[in-house]
């Protein structure tokens, strides 16, 4: 690895606040990747009549597989009780939080918010239709994170390519693209998302609809990146090493991606965490307004909305959603600050 980069990384590690935030976030992403093992209404393991079942990632098991008289998905919490009562040695191991984000589970027989209770294993309580808040928060956060990472990748891919091309080729190409971007970035983003999303037919699967939402958001967000890339590339382009590369006969794409890009990387990297912050905020805001992820996808925005509507009667909804959002955004911001600081070449420069 480039010694410069190693130095930067070392500096990043020295900034404790950012470094620990980074570890925390990576941990969170890793945990959420195996989320089905932690928060799920499917059992981790079922031992039934001598056979072992691992339903978490498999096809659904109808109740009849375990001697229950129905053909739909087994209720494993129920099964656990049945096995315990029977005492035949069969057992069920449930995940830490034995609820799915979509199921209604009420202890009182009516659907209404219930306060947090360790005894009922609703550690953060339930929402207005008795769905477990922890499960919804967990999967909502996972979707928000994945969504924002995908968002960042796409925004950068498009923004870098076009921005670099503008800076590198310059001239008429630059002029035309600048004007196009000016026009494009004047289209109000939020309204467009709302309009586009309202005409997507629900016949599409949820994942398709989320992908469309992502596409629309990317389409309206890549322009900001081009300005930075364009100026950076202009700067680098006039340097001697680029001229040298051209004389040797390197192709345009080789120059842009092999020579220019690594040298403007520090600008890029410092923006990344903030892009993620803005993506999480945007998706939460859209959900809050009811124009984001399709019902009943778990999401932070939807929980916030429920929470504000039940502020007096069920404060635990808004508290947990709000705290999650605050923690998430703070952590990403800390990382961003640390990255910016460690990539700043002027660490020891003193202005006079």
């Amino acid at each position, binding site marked *: 690895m480039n010694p410069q980069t190693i130095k930067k990384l070392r500096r990043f590690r020295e900034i404790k606040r950012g470094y620990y935030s980074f570890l925390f976030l990576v941990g969170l992403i890793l945990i959420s990747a195996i989320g089905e093992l932690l928060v799920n209404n499917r059992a981790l393991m079922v031992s039934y009549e001598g056979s072992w079942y691992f339903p978490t990632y498999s096809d659904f098991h109808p109740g009849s597989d375990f001697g229950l008289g*129905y053909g739909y*998905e087994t209720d494993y919490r129920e099964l656990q009780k049945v096995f315990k009562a029977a005492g035949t040695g069969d057992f069920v191991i449930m995940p830490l939080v034995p609820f799915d984000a979509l199921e209604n589970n009420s202890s009182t027989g009516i659907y209404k918010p219930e306060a947090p209770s360790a005894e009922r294993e609703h550690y953060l309580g339930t929402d207005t*239709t008795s769905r477990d808040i922890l499960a919804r928060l967990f999967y909502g956060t996972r979707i928000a994170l994945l969504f924002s990472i995908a968002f960042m990748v796409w925004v950068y891919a498009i923004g870098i390519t076009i921005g670099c091309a503008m800076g590198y080729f310059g001239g008429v190409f630059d002029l035309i693209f600048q004007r196009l971007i000016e026009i494009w970035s004047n289209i109000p983003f939020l309204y467009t998302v709302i309009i586009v999303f309202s005409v997507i037919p629900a016949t599409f699967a949820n994942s398709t609809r989320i992908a469309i939402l992502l596409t629309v958001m990317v389409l309206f967000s890549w322009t900001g990146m081009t300005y930075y890339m364009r100026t950076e590339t202009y700067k680098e382009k006039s340097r001697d090493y680029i001229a040298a590369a051209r004389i040797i006969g390197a192709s345009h794409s080789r120059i842009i991606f092999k020579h220019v890009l690594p040298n403007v990387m520090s600008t890029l990297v410092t923006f990344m965490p903030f892009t993620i912050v803005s993506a999480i905020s945007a998706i939460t805001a859209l959900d809050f307004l009811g124009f984001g992820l399709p019902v009943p996808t778990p999401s932070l925005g939807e929980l916030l909305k429920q929470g504000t509507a*039940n502020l007096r*009667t069920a404060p635990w909804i808004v508290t947990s959603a709000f705290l999650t959002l605050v923690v998430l955004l703070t952590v990403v911001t800390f990382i961003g600050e640390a990255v910016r600081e460690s990539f700043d070449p002027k660490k020891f420069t003193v202005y006079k």
Partner: protein
Amino acid sequence: MYINFRHLFFSLISASILSACGGPDTAEIEAPAIDNEQEVQDYYAANPDFFSFKNISDLPTDLVWENGMHLNELGSEQATKGGTEYYQIQDFPRTLRRVGPDSNGSFRPWINDYTSLGLAHRHPDKFEFFPALAESWALDPENKTVYVKLNPDARWSDGVPVTTDDMFFMFFFYQSDYIVAPWYKNWYSSQYTNITRYDDLTFSITTPQFKPNGGSNVIGLGPVPRHFYRELGDDYVDRYQWRFQPTTGPYIVRKKDIVKGSSIVLTRLDDWWAKDNKFFKNRYNVDRIQLNVIRDTAKAFEAFKKGDIDQARLNLAEFWYDKLPNSDSDVQNGYIHKSLFYNQRPRPTYGLWMNTSKALLDNLDVRIGIQHATNWQLVIAKYFRGDYSRMQTSSDGYGEFSHPTLKAREFDIDKALEHFAKAGFIERDANGVLINADGQKLAFTLSTGYTNMQDILTILKEEALKAGLEFRVEVLDGTAGWKKVQEKQHDIHFAALNVGLEMAPRFWETYHSDNAYDDAFLEDGSVNPDRKLKMQTNNLEAMTHFEMDGLIERYRASSDKEEMKALAYKMTEIHHDYASFVPGFYQAFFRIGHWRWLRYPEFFNHKHASMARQYHVHWLDLEMREETLAAQKAGKTFAPVIRTYDQFR
């Protein structure tokens, strides 16, 4: 309150209406003067069969005149006049016009349905007619005609007397193209064949069929002020956008009270012509009703709790039990009263409307399977906390016209699976959704325009999956949802059609094949292979049933009550067997919270009332307001009042 057919019978119950602010009212100032007197007279002359002119001596002498004066008074003797009531509306009205674009919104009842007078109104206890603008009326079933004498005291709010001219002009107005209201044009052109003038206050109206409903189609009408619409022309929509039409009712809107986007005030006329009338004297007691725009329901409730609003609807369980529980300090201290009132009236048809023109949904077994896979019992028990009741047919609440024994199909996974299997859906895929031999999934879009009821759909979705049925929930805003069903784009839609206080249910609008396809059947009753789906009708199920068509036509033409009843039962059964509508729930009551000083009669409300304030029987007790506010400050309390009125249960 005079019957406005379109609103009462055909409009979708609006759960959320898009917000809008008023447009510019410059048109009023700049528009050139018009006088349409000649045009109106020419129109009458050009349609001599419709508009007849006779003398009072031509009036038949053997008529039996009725006036409904034997009916009991409305409201309470204790009511006192005065005060300003504060109330919440969700959106600012987009227009003050009564007809035309944007006029059919949630503001209508304030200037039209609940505050205007027709010739006569249905008595909300006895169902018979009591007089309003009419002094008396006489039915002539043989000639399908109703004769009416107007009350000589009847006045428009600007002092102009109400005369036969206004009734004539009503037909000109609604039949004209200027008002841009096709439904009115159709109704007023097709449901009436003649109006005859006998003198300034006496006229008769003839209809194509004479229904056994006491002449309701005629005496439910309300006049249109001739003098106000002298400028009616092509620019009606703009010219009259923010003009308040003179009313025969007690409340007017003054120009200075229209604060666009934020509030609007109704002001009571001190010298209202009907203020001493038997049926009106105890109603419309509040001097001013200030309607404040508060878009957010949760926020509106907080405003009520603070006392900025005098009463609030608490129909949803979460408000009645959680947000304003009986143990709430304001309730326990007696500052806020809670009232629950059981009413009796036709019920809005909340349920799932399946579009039978879509693939799979055209299969009867699939439809019956869906019926059994829809767990309304659970929604009612857990979401509505057992307060609501299961709707059994699409025409509940019509008394003897509702089918006495028919029951909606219950949630039953085995029965659902059995019917899905008959339709070829036997295997389940990895997620438990049924698939047929071609690998096709048993999945449908379940859409709605009611954003506040999306929780219901997610509950249904979870339950349906047990029977191997997948619902893909789509929540749209009110306007988009309604557009979707009107264009018949939906698979299965959750909605309700509003219904008016009528004697018998209607079937033509929702179940006749004329409203599903162009030429649905060939001459011999077989399905026309070239038929085209018809948009913008209320046959949301695209139901076509040859026998049903015949029955509906007989039912519409029938003037025999017993025959109509028999036909209604038969049609309800056919519709049940067709299984394209999953009856949902109905609410057999309404319930409100109101500050102590906002008082209702001892019996609370009338039998057929649809909401607490429909008949304006409440009043403000100003002394009590002072007393309560002082008590609140001093920490003094009153006895809590939480009452259930179940006399009509």
